[in-house]
Structures are given as C-alpha cells and as structure tokens.
C-alpha cells in the first residue's frame, strides 16, 4: 500500500518536472526566434495602429453645399452648425439645386442641404418647415452616413431652439445612434483585432510549434521517451497562453489610450471572455497539429479555417446582420464571431455576464468538442 502510494507520488513528481522542463524549453524556442518574437509583439501594435489610423472606415471630409433661397436666422444657424462640424468640408452656398446636382455628378459634392422658401416664417407660423438632404449615394455607406450626420446636427439645433424660443416644433428628427454616436469604427474593429490576433497566436503558432517537432524529427525522440503525449500537448499551450494574454493587454492599452475606446464593462469579465476564447483557439491549434505533418500545411490550414473566417465572417469588418442567410449560419461556427460579440457587449456596451452567457456557453462547447477531437486524433506513435 505504502509502496504504491510512494510510486504514485513519484510518478506525479516526474510529470511535473517534465512539464516544467517542457514549458521552459518552449519559452526558449520563442525567445530565441527573433521573427516569432517580432510577430508576437509587433502584430497587435501594427494592427491596432493600421486599423486605427490608416484603414479608417469612418466617413470624414464630407463635402457639403447649401441652397438657401431665403436666408434667415434659423437657416443660417443650421448652415453654421454644419459648417463648423469637423466631419464636413464646406463648399459654400450654391445658386440652384441644378448646380448642386451637377457638382454631385462630377463627384465634387457628397451632400446638398436644400432649405425650402421662407423657412423661418413657415416654421414659426405653422410649426412645420422642410429641409431636404440630398446625399450622393454612389458610395451607399458614405451617402447614408453623411445624411445621418447632417440630420443629427439639424435635430440638435432644433432641440436648442425649442428650449430657447419655447416654440413647439413639429419636426422631430429622431435618429439616435446608441453606443457609437459618432459611428467610430474603432469601436467595431478593436474587438475584431483581439479576435484575430489571439487566433493567430494561439491557433497558428501552437499548431506550427507542434508540427515543427514532427518535421524536424524531435517528435520521434520525444515519443521514444517516457513523456506522455498529454503532458507534452498541455505544456505546449502554456507559453502561447501567456503570450496571448500579453497581446490582449497590449491591445486593450492601445485601444484605450491611443484610440480612446472606452472599457465600459467589467475588466474581470473581459479577461474571463478572453481566457475562454484563448483556450478555444489553443485547442483548435492542437486539433490542427494532429491533422497535418508539415509546418507549411499547418499555416495554410490555420489561415484558411481560422484567419479568413475571422476577417470575413466574424463581423469584424462586415456586420453579420448584413450577410446572406447561408453565410450568417456559417458564421455561427466561427469562434471569433462569438468572442467579438461578447467583447463588444462587455467592453463597449458595458453589459454583464448575464447578457453574454450564450456566447460564453457556445465558446466553451466548441472547446470541449475540439478537445475531444484532439484527444481522439492524438497518436502514441509516429503513424
């Protein structure tokens, strides 16, 4: 009895020593490979800055012109407000609507603001006056956003005037955009970049690091040793888990301090969501490593099954709601979609665990499924 107890303790001890030695070795591999190190630290920084400044999906520099047949205090007020706004680039007043259309056709004009005749008079007498917003929708996104901006400015002006003049205005331009009033694209892509970077680190790097051992022949030596496959696989994931968290923190810091994205929800919950997603993507990396034998194949396989879906189907760039139904259904199996949803809810909207239980459960379910596949596919031998 006592003997077997001791043996058991000794076995445990060996496993722990092996495990630590293996984790240690993995860290050395990473630290000594400058390219890997550069990718790990550089990638989140570059992506955040790239998406934050270069690939700006916000609509800016909207060229706007005004047609005001009977200038008065209110039309001038609205005109001034729009001119002042930093998103607009004022082209001044135009003599006719026809001229504006001409400019629009040439592409010189994004938005035309057309006031009706006797704007103030009608407004004061009937409580009703019309402004027409003509948006150049050759780029539909830009067109609709330009019109929305202008509507919001006019509505704001009305609100002020109503309070000042105590006149009951009829026109109510209700167009409120919640959570992202300026439609800042950084709010959209920061969770996306988290999803992407963690996927790259966890899935691609983990699978490549295991497959590298197969390709270089070191797996053969490891297999011929008493090291258990489970110990090895678990040890492989530890360094990448640590690195993922470092990258996650880098992204959080950069988006908070550089891009000004707020963290409205619980930071702890955000880390919990990240931990679940990291476990999921690490497990997926392990799954891939059981399916391929060459590093190049691991990269290609991960890129096709992990990276492209993150970019295309996760809602990072293209909103899931705008996708065809088939792709929407397909996006449901993309892990990053659930992570990005959960991060948006917690980080931007400030919601609690209760509102993201579905995303969390789906990610945990996926992890368990992939872990099962990995265990079933892990070989005790070379073939």
């Amino acid at each position, binding site marked *: 009895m006592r003997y077997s107890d001791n043996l058991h303790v000794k076995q445990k001890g*060996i496993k722990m*020593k*092996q495990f630590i*030695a293996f984790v240690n*070795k993995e860290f*050395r*591999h990473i630290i*000594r*490979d400058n390219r890997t190190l550069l990718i790990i630290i550089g990638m989140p920084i570059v992506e955040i800055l790239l998406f934050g400044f270069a690939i700006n999906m916000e609509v800016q520099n909207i060229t706007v012109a005004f047609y005001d047949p009977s200038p008065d205090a209110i039309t001038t007020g609205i005109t001034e407000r729009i001119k002042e706004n930093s998103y607009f680039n004022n082209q001044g007043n135009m003599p006719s609507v026809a001229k504006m259309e001409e400019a629009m056709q040439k592409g010189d004009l994004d938005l035309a603001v057309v006031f009706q005749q006797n704007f103030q008079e009608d407004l004061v007498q009937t409580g009703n006056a019309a402004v027409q917003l003509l948006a150049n929708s050759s780029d539909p996104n830009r067109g609709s956003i330009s019109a929305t901006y202008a509507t919001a400015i006019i509505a704001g002006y009305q609100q002020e005037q109503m309070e000042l003049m105590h006149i009951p205005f009829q026109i109510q331009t209700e167009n409120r955009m919640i959570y992202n009033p300026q439609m800042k694209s950084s709010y959209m892509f920061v969770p996306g970049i988290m999803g992407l970077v963690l996927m790259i680190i966890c899935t691609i790097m983990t699978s490549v690091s295991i497959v590298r051992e197969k390709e*270089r*022949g*070191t797996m*053969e*030596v*490891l*297999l*011929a*040793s*008493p*090291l258990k496959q489970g110990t090895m696989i678990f040890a492989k994931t530890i360094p990448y888990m640590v690195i993922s968290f470092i990258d996650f923190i880098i992204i959080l810091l950069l988006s908070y301090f550089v891009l000004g994205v707020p963290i409205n929800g619980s930071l702890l919950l955000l880390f919990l969501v990240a931990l679940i997603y990291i476990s999921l993507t690490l497990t997926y990396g392990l799954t891939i490593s059981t399916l391929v034998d060459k590093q190049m194949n691991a990269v290609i396989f991960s890129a096709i099954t992990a990276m492209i879906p993150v970019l295309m189907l996760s809602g990072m760039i293209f909103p899931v709601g705008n996708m065809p139904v088939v792709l929407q259904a397909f996006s449901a199996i993309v892990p990053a979609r659930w992570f990005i949803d959960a991060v948006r809810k917690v980080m931007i909207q400030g919601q609690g665990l209760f509102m993201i239980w579905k995303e969390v459960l789906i990610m945990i379910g996926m992890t368990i499924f992939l872990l099962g596949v990995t265990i079933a596919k892990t070989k*005790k*031998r*070379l*073939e």
Partner: protein
Amino acid sequence: MIEVKDLHKSYGKSGKINALNGISFNVNDGDIFGVIGPDGAGKSTLFRILASLIMPDSGTAIMNGYDVVKDYRKIRQIIGYMPGRFSLYQDLSVEENLKFFATLFDTTIEENYHLIKDIYQQIEPFKNRRAGALSGGMKQKLALSCALIHKPEILILDEPTTGVDPVSRKEFWDMLARLKEQGIIILVSTAYMDEASRCDRIALIREGELIASNTPQGIIDDYSDILWAVEGSRMSAILRELRKYEKIKTSFAFGDKIHITVDESLQIGELKQYLINRDFRDVGINPIEPTVEDCFIALTN
C-alpha cells in the same frame, strides 16, 4: 536479450511497399549488434518498430522481456533511441539539450555523468553553443549523450555514422566499444559495410529481407567463392573486358580495385595473359580474403 520474430511491415495504399518482409533475429545481452544493408533496405523501419514508434503489421519483438507493441510505455523507459537524422533542438545549447532529455527521463546530468563522461567531455567546452552550430561529429556526440543520459538498457542507433567524417566514425565506434563494457545492448544500423567488423554480430538485410545473421567472421567463413582483386590503370576498361570473360562469375568495382569471383579452373596467369593480350600491361591480380561487402554481394546475387 532481444528476440525479433517474423516482422512484417508495409507502407502505402493497400500495402504496396514492403519495408520489412519477415525479419527474425536474436540479440544477446551485452552485444553490439549491427544491422547492415544499403539505403532503403528497411533498417529505419525495423528500428522504429523496436523503439515502439511504429507498429508492425505482424510478427513480434521482445526487448528485455517487454513487447514493443503491448508494453510500449515500458520500452520507452528502457531504450535510448537516436534517429537517423539529427533530432535535437538546434536552437537550444548543448547543455540545455542534455538537461532537457535528462529531465524527460527523470534523471540529472550529474547522476549518470559517468556514463557519458567519455563522450560528453569532448563537447563540454562548447556546452553553451547552440546545437545547430555544432559540427557533424560533435552533433553525433551530443545526440549519443542525450540518448545515454538515462542509462538505457538498450541503445538503438539508426545510422549514427552516416554523413560523418572517417575520423569521427572511427571515434564513434571506439565509444560504442566502451559503452558495451557497461553492459548496454547496442543495436546499430549502417550502410557502411566496413563497419561490420566492429560489431559482435551482424544481420545483413536487403529489401526488407534478412540475408544472413552471424558474427562478422562467421559470415566471412561462409563465403565459398574464389575471390581475386584486380588492379590496374584503366579500371573501367578492364572491368568491361573482365565481364566478357566466361570463367569469371562476378566482377565489381571495389574502391580502387576490382573484386572478381572466378571458376575453379581459372589460373591467375591465364587471366593476366588474357588482359595483356588486350593491351592492359600493368595489371596486378591477387587472391584476397573476402570482406563483409563481398559476402553481401555474393549473398544478394
């Protein structure tokens, strides 16, 4: 004690490529056992089966009482395996590699230093150098140290001297001879026939089949042909002429000589005259003792 019985292994779809086709042999305790054959003979497949890395299609292999299929966990504790190509971590230093493998086998460098001392001392001055930056001979020494660090009962070395310079090759065999004194069974494969004499017993294999298994001297003693060595200046022209002569059974270029086996009725003078008549005036012909390679060629013909 290793007992290999009727191992079969085939690869490819529907088993088209026969890597091993019924190999059987025994290895005695404390022996250096050489598995000798050309590239593609099935040496690596055989060693991987013995190292429990792949499973045979049929047949059994028992190593010190443990079955390589059923008791693979136990096998992996008692063997030291060194694959055909250098399979250590190139980005880790010499010492880090050795330490890592020592820990995998739940031991330390200090505990078994006496075993590897001879070998490791030669690379110890470079212990902080990354393994990838070592010369071929030093890589072999490091790989052998790593395979030995846990004091294995059986050492399995797959073509350890391939691609190593002649001096390092000789050193390597000297090291194996010293390890043998520690009572370790050493299984070693090679494509160099001249290394056969360093083994206690050898198995000659070709295309997955065992041709002969004996002591190197036993194999040579079994050689029954009359063997002569022919030397001269225009070797390839001589070889062409020799192959036309009906009293010569076989003729092979062998280093800077030609080894021929001849009919009993042929006299050296007769053959010499034959060559002189064909304008080869500077030839020398001498009867020689066969080498293992001569035996291999004779056995495979």
